[in-house]
C-alpha cells in the first residue's frame, strides 16, 4: 500500500463524534475528553486519529480512550480508501476498520490519556462550535407537496432504484434520486473518471480522475443522504448480471450510452415486470421513454424491433455534447422514477419524448404497443463475437495489404472527396450501401474495413460477421490512426 485517503460526512461525523466523547465522559467519570480524526490524504505511518482524556486516575483514562476509539471506528461516517502500490485502490468502510487487527497496520492512531489540565477540553469545544444545525437531510420542502406528504416520503425511503451508468445522464439522475431520500440505490458503472467526463459529469472532480466512477459516486451520494444504502457494481451491465441485480430493485433507470446495454435493460425489465426509465442523448437532442409493466404499454423493442447495432447509426466523428443536455434528460429520468415510486401517474399515454435543446422543441410522440413485438420474457441476447477480436491495427494501409487483407473503404463519397487516402484500397462501398442491403462484396476473402476513425468499420465488421462473412476485420482507429 502507498497511501491512505479518508473521506467523511463531516456534519454527521462531528455530531456522532461529540456524542461518543460525551458518553465516554459520563460512563467513566473522567474530567475531559476529545478526539480528532484526520480526513484527506495520509502517508503510511501518519497519525489518523488522536484521542485525549484527562482524568484523576489512569485506569479510567485508558478505558475512556479505548471506548472512544472503538466507538469512533464503529459509528462515525468516515470512509477509508487504500491506495495500493500497483495503482489499484479500494474503499474500506468504518465497520471493517473496526474489525480486530484490520486497522493497526495501515496508519497510526495515538490514544493519549492526558494529565489534568492538558488541551483536551479546548478540542471538545472546537468540535461543538463546528456542528451545524441540520446534520441530516431535511425533506420538508418536498413533503410540503400534496402529492408527496409524509406517506410519500416514507415510500421513497422504502423504495429502491437501480441506475445503469453513472455518466452524463446517470450523474444528475443519481444526485436527485439520492437527494430525494430514495432509501436504496444501486450504481452500475464499470468506467473510471476521465478528464473529458467532467464538463457533463460535475459530480466528479479532477482529483477523481482514474478512480472508479461507481465508488466515487457512492461516496458523494452518501454525503447527500447518509441514511440511504448505496450498492456499487463497478462493472458493465450485461445479460449475465442484470436480471440478478434488477430483481432486488423497484425501478431501473437506464443511463447507459450504447444500444446493447439499453436493449439488455429493456429485456431484463420485461422479464422481471419492473418499470424502466430510458433516456439517450445525441449532441443537442435527447429521447426519453418510460416502460411500465402493463398490458397496453410499449417496450423499447416495440419502438425499435431491430435493436440497432452500436456504431451503425450516427457519424464517425466523436459525438460532441454540451453538459446541460444529458443533465436535463437525467433529471427528467429522476423525476419519472420518483413518480413511479410515489405511485403518481407517470404520463397520460405511452410516448417517446424527443427534445431539441438547441431549437427548444419538445415533441411528445405517442407510441402504442407493437402487435409484432411478443413482449414476452425471452433469453437475453449477447453478442457472440467480442468486438476486440474484430479489430486489427496496422501502421500503414500498405502493411495491411501486404498481410493479405483486401481493403474496403466504407466512407461516404463526400468524405472520400475531402480526404483521398494513398493506399491499396480495392473496394469503395459506402456504409449506406451496406445498410441498404448491398451484397456486392463477395463472402469469400479476408477483408479489412476502413473508415475515418474506426467506429463505423467496427460496427460493420460485427454486422457482416453476423451475416456470415467469415473473415472481416476493422482497422483500429480508422484512417486517422495510420500514416500515409
Amino acid at each position, binding site marked *: 500500500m502507498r497511501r491512505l485517503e479518508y473521506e467523511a460526512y463531516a456534519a454527521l461525523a462531528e455530531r456522532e463524534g461529540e456524542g461518543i466523547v460525551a458518553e465516554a465522559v459520563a460512563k467513566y467519570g473522567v474530567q475531559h475528553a476529545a478526539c480528532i480524526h484526520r480526513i484527506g490524504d495520509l502517508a503510511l505511518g501518519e497519525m489518523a486519529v488522536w484521542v485525549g482524556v484527562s482524568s484523576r486516575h489512569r485506569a479510567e483514562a485508558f478505558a475512556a480512550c479505548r471506548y472512544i476509539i472503538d466507538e469512533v471506528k464503529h459509528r462515525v461516517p468516515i470512509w477509508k480508501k487504500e491506495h495500493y502500490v500497483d495503482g489499484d485502490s479500494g474503499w474500506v468502510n468504518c465497520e471493517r476498520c473496526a474489525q480486530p487487527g484490520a486497522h493497526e497496520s495501515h496508519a497510526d492512531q495515538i490514544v493519549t490519556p492526558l494529565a489534568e489540565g492538558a488541551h483536551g477540553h479546548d478540542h471538545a469545544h472546537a468540535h461543538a462550535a463546528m456542528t451545524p444545525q441540520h446534520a441530516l437531510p431535511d425533506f420538508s420542502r418536498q413533503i410540503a407537496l400534496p402529492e408527496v406528504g409524509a406517506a410519500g416520503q416514507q415510500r421513497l425511503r422504502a423504495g429502491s432504484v437501480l441506475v445503469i*451508468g453513472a*455518466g*452524463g*445522464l*446517470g450523474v444528475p439522475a443519481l444526485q436527485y434520486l439520492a437527494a430525494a431520500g430514495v432509501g436504496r440505490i444501486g450504481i452500475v458503472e464499470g468506467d473510471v473518471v476521465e478528464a473529458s467526463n467532467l464538463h457533463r459529469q460535475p459530480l466528479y472532480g479532477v482529483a477523481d480522475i482514474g478512480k472508479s466512477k461507481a465508488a466515487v459516486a457512492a461516496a458523494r451520494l452518501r454525503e447527500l443522504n447518509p441514511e440511504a444504502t448505496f450498492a456499487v457494481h463497478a462493472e458493465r451491465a450485461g445479460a449475465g448480471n442484470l436480471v440478478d441485480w434488477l430483481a432486488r430493485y423497484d425501478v431501473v433507470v437506464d*443511463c*447507459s*450510452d*450504447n*444500444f446493447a446495454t*439499453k436493449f439488455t435493460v429493456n429485456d431484463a425489465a420485461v422479464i422481471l415486470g419492473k418499470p424502466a426509465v430510458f*433516456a*439517450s*442523448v*445525441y*449532441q443537442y*437532442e*435527447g*429521447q426519453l421513454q418510460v416502460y411500465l409493466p402493463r398490458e397496453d404499454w410499449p417496450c423499447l423493442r416495440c*419502438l*425499435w424491433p*431491430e435493436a*440497432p447495432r*452500436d456504431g*451503425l*447509426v*450516427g*457519424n464517425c466523428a466523436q*459525438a460532441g*455534447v454540451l453538459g446541460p443536455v*444529458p443533465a436535463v434528460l437525467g433529471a427528467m429520468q429522476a423525476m419519472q422514477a420518483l413518480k413511479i415510486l410515489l405511485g403518481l401517474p407517470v404520463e397520460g399515454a405511452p410516448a*417517446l419524448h*424527443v427534445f*431539441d435543446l*438547441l*431549437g427548444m*422543441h419538445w*415533441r*411528445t*410522440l*405517442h*407510441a*402504442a404497443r407493437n402487435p409484432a413485438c411478443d413482449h414476452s420474457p425471452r433469453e437475453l441476447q449477447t453478442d457472440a463475437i467480442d468486438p476486440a477480436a474484430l479489430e486489427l491495427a496496422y501502421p500503414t494501409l500498405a502493411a495491411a495489404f501486404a498481410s493479405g487483407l483486401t481493403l474496403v473503404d466504407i466512407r*461516404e463519397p*463526400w468524405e472520400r472527396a475531402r480526404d483521398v487516402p494513398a493506399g491499396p484500397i480495392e473496394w469503395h462501398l*459506402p*456504409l*449506406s450501401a451496406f*445498410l*441498404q*442491403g448491398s451484397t456486392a462484396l463477395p463472402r469469400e476473402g479476408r477483408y479489412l474495413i476502413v473508415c475515418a476513425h474506426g467506429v463505423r468499420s467496427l460496427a460493420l465488421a460485427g454486422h457482416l460477421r453476423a451475416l456470415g462473412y467469415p473473415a472481416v476485420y476493422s482497422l483500429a482507429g480508422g484512417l486517422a490512426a495510420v500514416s500515409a
Partner: protein
Amino acid sequence: MKKITLQYFAVLREQAGCSEERLETAAATPAELYEEVRARHGFTLPLSMLRVAVNEEFRDWSSPLESSDRVVFIPPVAGG
C-alpha cells in the same frame, strides 16, 4: 400536391443541415416522402432503421399522408 412540415433529428438533422423544412410533395406515404428527401439530402440511413411520426403519433411507413401533416423522422440514439 400536399404541403408537409418535416422535422429531422440527430444524424438526419446533421445531414439535412436543418432541423425543419416545409415542402410540397406528391408522396402518398411517409416511405415515399423519405425516399424523396433521402435523395435530396444524401441521408445514409435506410428507412428500416428509422421510425416516423405523423402529427405526434408513430405511424406505419405505408400510412396515407395528408396536406398540412407534420412529419418527424427519428433515428434511434444511444448517447449517455
